[in-house]
């Protein structure tokens, strides 16, 4: 039985920071269509700070809402702060999720982490 909190529904209905970012500094995609969920995260970074973030999500309402909340939480954070964000932080901020949705709500933080990794790799290359 899927029961979402008001806040989850709000983030589902009005996802924050949703859509593509043409001039992103880094882009990362996790998941796959076959698996049933997929997410892309776009970051704009200035002085090691996430000044802008956007996401796209293919998945259920929990998937979309966690992505939305994640972007809201990390926007404005430094890279170091963003790296410390956990899946649990996001779910708590949403007032909880049905247990059956835990696996797919991981995806938001996983994709963010992957984007940060990509960014650090690109810095190392410079």
């Amino acid at each position: 039985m899927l029961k979402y909190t008001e806040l989850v529904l709000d983030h589902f209905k009005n996802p924050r920071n949703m859509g593509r970012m043409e001039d992103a500094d880094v882009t990362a995609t996790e998941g796959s269509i076959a698996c049933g969920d997929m997410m892309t995260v776009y970051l704009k970074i200035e002085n090691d700070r996430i000044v802008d973030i956007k996401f796209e999500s293919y998945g259920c309402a929990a998937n979309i809402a966690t992505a939305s909340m994640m972007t809201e939480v990390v926007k404005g954070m430094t890279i170091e702060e963003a790296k410390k964000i956990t899946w649990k932080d996001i779910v708590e901020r949403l007032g909880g999720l049905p247990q059956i949705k835990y696996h797919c709500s991981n995806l938001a933080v996983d994709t963010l982490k992957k984007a940060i990794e990509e960014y650090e790799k690109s810095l190392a290359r410079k």
Partner: protein
Amino acid sequence: MRVFLDNDRTTKVLPEVAEVVVKYMTEKFARPDGLYESAQEIYDELEAAREFFAKSINASSGEEIIFTSGATEANNLALLGVARANKSKGNHIIISALEHGSVMKIADVLQKEGFEVTVVPVDHEGIIDLDFLEKSIKPTTILVSIIAIGHFVGSIMPLKEVSQILKRQDHRIYFHTDAAEMYAKFPIDVQELGIDLMSVSAHKFHGPKGVGFLYARKGVRLQPIMFGAESYDKRRPGGENVPGVMGMKKAAELAFEEMDQSLQRLRELQEYFINRVESEIEYVVLNGPRGEKRTPYNVNFSFSFIEGEAISLALSLEGVEVATGSACASETLEPNYAILAIGGDHERAHGSIRFTFNRFTTKEELDYTVDKLKKVVSWLRQISPIKPGR
């Protein structure tokens, strides 16, 4: 506006039906086994109800009707009952790939009890493979159970052809059909179709929840799944659900009166709905057959690039209530087996939405639904990282 398009799951009880239920709860509340007049009246009315249901499917006698708590119980009584009572004759059972979950589960249980189960595949429209069926019959086959209307995708099964195949065999094979989505929507003649057992549920046709019946042709041996005191019907003991049965009778009477017009009207509405969706929304696939092979009560679409739980939740926030075959909406996180059975992949199951009508569904409701659907689909596609052509 609230549009309920999940009528395959359950339907709203009609006021006329509720009135009957109330009468048998608060006035004619006796049970049929008392020695006094009010009890004997109830006995007669239950007998008349059995006759009514028998007639409604051209069965030969009211004794062939066994009242149950619904189609799940009827399916259990039919499959477990026939298999267990006839296991000296053979241990092989055949079902289709589009059975309702209850028949699937019961077949699993029978397998654990030592029965062999063959699942007949369906084609891309959801119609069973009759050749495969015929070839799978063995001397040990005792029972074939084919759902009347393919689960989730609305394909009308060739029941008559199935029974003809069974009649050609050298030994007697019982034929059961789960007609929960067909009874009181379509005319059913158990003689013509050669059906030996049939499951029915009242809450699928505006009758009360918790009541249904099993038709079991005279001579079919059944082992009960429940045991009890002397009672109205030995095959199904327990306090008789008289208000439920009488409400189910009323609901069936009303449905049979309007059956032909409803089928005609819904066929047109269905076509209209399918046309609007296919012409106004891109990247959609109709799951299941078109035209005569499909029940007019069901439409099922997969929407590419987006996921069904999100679609159905977004629709419900707009007042439209539907079902989805997405893995994300299932407790077991498995994609819908019906979509896989007709050859769809996980993605197609993921984006599938089932719209099921009742005989009161209106054009206005469907127009509203398409409008909201367009909005929801285009919005979710905006969010999705998967775009056509990428």
